């Protein structure tokens, strides 16, 4: 008998769960501070839990550093700077950084899984974006260590000393790489504080630093909350503060270091415009909108959170966007098919929910994708608001979640004005098929990164940083070195 030719094999074809294997990772129950290449119990004797935001389960206990612990770390960094790191040749320093990069690559899978466990970001992103970019950042800057005289034509490069670095929870390992790699290449030593909800990958990086045989004290990692960060900022023997986080905290830091010798770079908030013209490659623009606002659950300082669509294509773009949102998988960060993972913390979820409430109260029209959310953990549906104007709170304030505001525009002048109508100036997106218009816009948009016909792209060679209240200084590329040189 012949086989049958049924027109439909199954009524529905859905993806079976595809969980990433977690057996290969090694996590301690309790993590100490990493000072002078040793694991040191905090003199505070205090620890705090770090949880998996997708399950609300505790992953490990993390040491909470106080002023005395930070002092110990800074002293170690100072000693290492004075006695070892500043005496090594550029080539020797480069060798160490290369070694770290290679060892990170070898343990990339473990890093990816731990990053997803601790931060809630989907494994697809930690595996394909965060971890490779972090490794590549070390590779890139390793090669600069013996070529600093080419880094800035106006200066004879000299390192600064001890760099205090405070990083956020949205790209935990990647931000650590953005901070540590150029600092070391430029000849500085480091005291780094990871964000309190996402310390684990920085501590795993400490293991690698130990294994790589980096001289003791060159990199110190002190975990803790805001008070730990404040202790770094206020420590008199720190030469440089590099901070990524909110504009509010950035301003507090900037005030705190006035009158000191500390230099600073600040990578702060944003409310970036993503602009779609009627001649844009519409389907790719829709992908760019999705990538702009839903990448990493919208926990991205340069997220394209203010969408501007030319009025004559607005209906079509919004319809396509809604339809595309329905094909986003929200759920278990460790499932290889998950597009949108967990919100990083309960507090952040509450903040996002507050803004969604405000948006509704302001009279904007809400649309959320119809996906079902896991019963446990912190999750948020992809959300967009239409009928928004610049005067709406949700179009002015940084939400830091998967929430898009959509405004329409009619003319070029109008959209340039509105796009720049913000105290922030981190990034912008422009979608049009017309080359001359792209260059007109990219020069008129007051933002440090402009993505034309693409969005949310990052690369170690590409400088990143903002205008206006989005901070100052650049990270990445040749321009990222000057932040660590005098």
């Amino acid at each position, binding site marked *: 008998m012949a086989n049958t030719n049924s027109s439909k094999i199954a009524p529905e074809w859905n993806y079976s769960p595809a969980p990433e294997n977690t057996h290969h990772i090694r996590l301690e129950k309790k993590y100490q501070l990493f000072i002078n290449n040793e694991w040191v119990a905090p003199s505070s004797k205090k620890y705090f839990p770090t949880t998996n935001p997708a399950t609300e389960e505790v992953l490990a206990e993390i040491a909470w550093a106080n002023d005395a612990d930070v002092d110990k770390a800074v002293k170690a960094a100072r000693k290492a700077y004075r006695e070892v790191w500043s005496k090594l040749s550029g080539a020797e320093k480069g060798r160490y950084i290369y070694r770290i990069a290679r060892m990170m690559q070898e343990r990339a899978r473990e890093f990816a899984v731990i990053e997803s466990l601790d931060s809630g970001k989907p494994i697809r992103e930690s595996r394909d974006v965060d971890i490779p970019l972090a490794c*590549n950042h070390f590779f890139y800057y390793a090669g600069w260590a013996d070529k600093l005289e080419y880094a800035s*034509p*106006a*200066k004879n490069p000299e390192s600064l000393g001890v760099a205090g670095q405070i990083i956020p929870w949205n790209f935990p390992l990647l931000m650590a790489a953005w901070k540590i790699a150029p600092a070391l290449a430029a000849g500085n030593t480091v005291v780094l504080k990871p964000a309190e909800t996402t310390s684990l990958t920085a501590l795993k990086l400490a293991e690698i630093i130990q294994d790589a045989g980096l001289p003791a004290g060159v990199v110190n990692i002190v975990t803790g909350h805001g008070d730990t960060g404040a202790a770094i900022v206020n420590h008199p023997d720190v030469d440089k503060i590099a901070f990524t986080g909110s*504009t509010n905290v*950035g*301003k507090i830091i*900037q*005030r705190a270091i*006035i*009158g000191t010798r500390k230099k600073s770079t*600040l990578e*702060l908030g944003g409310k970036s415009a993503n602009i779609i013209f009627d001649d844009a490659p519409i389907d790719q623009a829709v992908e760019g909108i999705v990538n702009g606002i839903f990448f990493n659950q919208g926990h991205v300082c340069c997220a394209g959170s203010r969408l501007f669509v030319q009025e004559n294509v607005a209906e079509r773009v919004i319809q396509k966007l809604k339809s595309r949102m329905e094909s986003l998988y929200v759920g278990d960060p460790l499932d290889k098919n998950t597009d949108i993972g967990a919100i990083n913390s309960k507090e952040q979820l509450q903040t996002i929910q507050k803004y969604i409430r405000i948006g509704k109260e302001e009279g904007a029209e809400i649309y959320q994708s119809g996906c079902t959310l896991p019963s446990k953990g912190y999750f948020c549906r992809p959300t967009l608001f239409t009928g928004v104007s610049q005067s709406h709170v949700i179009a002015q304030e940084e939400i830091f979640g998967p929430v898009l505001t959509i405004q329409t525009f009619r003319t070029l002048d109008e959209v340039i004005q509105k796009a720049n109508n913000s*105290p922030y100036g981190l990034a912008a997106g422009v979608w049009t098929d017309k080359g001359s218009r*792209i260059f007109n816009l*990219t*020069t008129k948009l*007051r*933002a*440090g*990164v*402009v*993505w*034309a*016909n*693409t969005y949310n*792209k990052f*690369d170690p*060679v*590409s*400088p*990143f*940083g903002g*205008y*206006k*209240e989005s*901070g*100052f200084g*650049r990270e990445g*590329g*040749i*321009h990222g070195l000057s932040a660590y040189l005098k």
Partner: protein
Amino acid sequence: MDILKTYKIYIGGSFPRTESGRYYPIADATGKTLANVCLSSRKDVRNAVVAARKAFGGWSEKTAFNRGQILYRIAEMLDGRKGQFIDELMDQGISKSKAEKEVEQSVDRVVYYAGWADKYQQVASSVNPVSSSHFNFSALEPMGIIGIIAPQENSLLGLIELAIPAICGGNTAVVVASESYPLCSITFAEVLHSSDVPGGVVNILTGKVAELAPALAGHMDINALVSCPLGELQTSLALSCVENLKRNFIYTDPNRQGLNFITDLQEVKTTWHPIESIGGATSSY
């Protein structure tokens, strides 16, 4: 009998009196009043910032070559009025040799930056070889409006050393002149005025630093503040700058000539664009 000149301020390409109606006298070494000078107010700062913002678009979009031409024109005009500047400096008690040297250096500085106008971008920009199918480059863009507090000594040279690199890079400026030696700054405004510099690109106010500098530092539409060390005032100015994260540059080194005086007042903008690789049968698609 000498005509007692009233030095007016320079805002938006005009020479108004201060809106406050206040003046202060400048005396020579013997105590004889040389001139009356405007004691500018916060409102004059406000007006100057409005003029500077208005001028920013046009000035920053001028071609680099054109800005260089205009800067060179400034140098020519300055050179042509050397005698007047030397006299003015000497009137304010500066020795002849010092005055001559200062004016000479002032001309040199302007010529130096005129030459940079169409070169700094090439030196400080980069094409970044990203690991994806994108063309990526970083170029400099002017920050916007620069608030400048000119140093008290070397009143002409100091003003030029801080203001000229700012405008060389396409910024516009609001300058507080030397409080003690203000005369040359207003004469320099006349040079700017006759050198094709569009109105509003450089605005020059005279008056008390203690009154005007805080107004600059706290102004939310000024993008950067540039000064030489200002003593006690410095901390409160720095605090005000944090309000809108104004970039705050304090130049301690007396040698004030170099590329960094331009590039400090520039933002690095990075632009990405996809590269389509299309071929015939050998194409990958």
